[in-house]
């Protein structure tokens, strides 16, 4: 029986992947709720779990494709491939509207532009300091410092190495976790007690999971405002990182 099960699981890789990721998500949210009281968002724990799986797979097989080099997990490659990823990320823009953005005022638009630029520059600076000097890798890690969505989207668009994409996910994950933990402590100093400031904050930070957990712990009523701004952040990031920002980096670090 086990033999038939294993064969079925491998032959229907995508379904196996749905199941594996579902279990991982459940486990991550369970850890989030029981061990961290929800302070560390389940989504961040799950993404970290994904990176751990990739590491385990790499050590076990010596391959380059993380856990997907093990046949049982191969379906994760399709599920996490560029096609499904771009499709799902584009879908997250649904619900955002430019009227809302206009209504939220000039300061939110300034924060969007400033938030993406500052994170990107910070990320590129850190990557450069640690010895990465080619425009594609720098741009990917810089975009990852914006969010762990913008990073891999940018990396794939520019043809970056899997190593660079993994680093961009890790950078975005670190950012999300810092935002989650720091927000409730800084809320008072930031004046984070009204919808307008929540939108400025969301536009400045941009990390969906970080903002969701951070505002949940501060004042759940502010969450929709922060998340609306974050949706624009992701869109703008996916637009400018693999275009304008990449061209600037190409000028600074010619191939």
């Amino acid at each position, binding site marked *: 029986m086990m033999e038939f099960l294993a064969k079925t699981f491998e032959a229907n890789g995508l379904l196996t992947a749905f199941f594996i990721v579902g279990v*991982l*998500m459940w486990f991550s949210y369970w850890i989030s709720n029981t061990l961290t009281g929800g302070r560390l968002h389940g989504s961040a724990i799950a*993404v970290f779990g*994904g990176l751990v*799986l*990739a590491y385990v797979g*790499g050590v076990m097989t010596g391959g380059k494709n*993380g*856990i997907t080099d093990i046949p049982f997990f191969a379906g*994760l490659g399709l*599920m*996490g491939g560029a096609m*499904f990823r771009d*499709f*799902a990320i*584009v*879908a*997250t*823009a*649904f*619900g955002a509207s430019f009227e809302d953005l206009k209504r*939220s*005022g*000039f*300061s939110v638009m300034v*924060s969007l532009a400033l938030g993406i630029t*500052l994170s990107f520059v*910070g990320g*590129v600076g850190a990557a450069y300091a*640690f*010895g*990465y000097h080619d425009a594609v890798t720098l741009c990917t*890690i810089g975009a990852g*410092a*914006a969010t762990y969505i913008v990073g*891999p989207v940018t990396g794939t*668009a520019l*043809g970056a190495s*899997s190593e660079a994409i*993994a680093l*961009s*996910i*890790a*950078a975005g994950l*670190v*950012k999300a976790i810092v935002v989650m933990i*720091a927000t409730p402590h*800084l809320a008072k*100093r*930031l004046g984070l007690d009204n919808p307008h*400031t929540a939108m*400025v904050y969301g536009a*400045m930070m941009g990390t*969906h999971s970080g903002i*969701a957990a951070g505002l949940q712990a501060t004042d759940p009523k502010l969450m929709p405002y922060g998340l609306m701004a974050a949706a624009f952040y992701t*869109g703008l990031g*996916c637009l*400018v990182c693999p*275009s304008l920002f990449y*061209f600037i980096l190409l000028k600074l670090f010619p191939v």
Partner: protein
Amino acid sequence: MMIYGTALLAICTLIGISIGEALGSLLGVRANVGGVGFAMLLLILSTTWLIKKGRLKPLTAEGIQFWSGIYIPIVVAMSAKQNVVVAMKGGPAAIFAGVVGVAISFAMIPYVNRIGQSKKSVPKVRQEEPRSGVS
């Protein structure tokens, strides 16, 4: 029908990525220039237009929302297939990259918040728990 929403999402994504490819070859770089961003722009514009016309049925919306709801699981799967073993040596770079940007951003919030202080307008939002998974 739900497939209408999924079909709309698919065509927006396909056109957006095509624009990115075209821009890349136009500008002479081997890259998809902002394709996903253009796709998101198209989705926002088309759905806003449909909503205004009253043509976006709840079922159609569900055909889009499902995909938006499983983007974190897809990112998890994507993480699991990266070359993390090699990336480990760049670990400190990733940690610094994440921390530096966020620290500067936090510091800037009070200043940016003062811009246009006189009219603190905000759009209406629905007060509800976001669906689990969309986070």
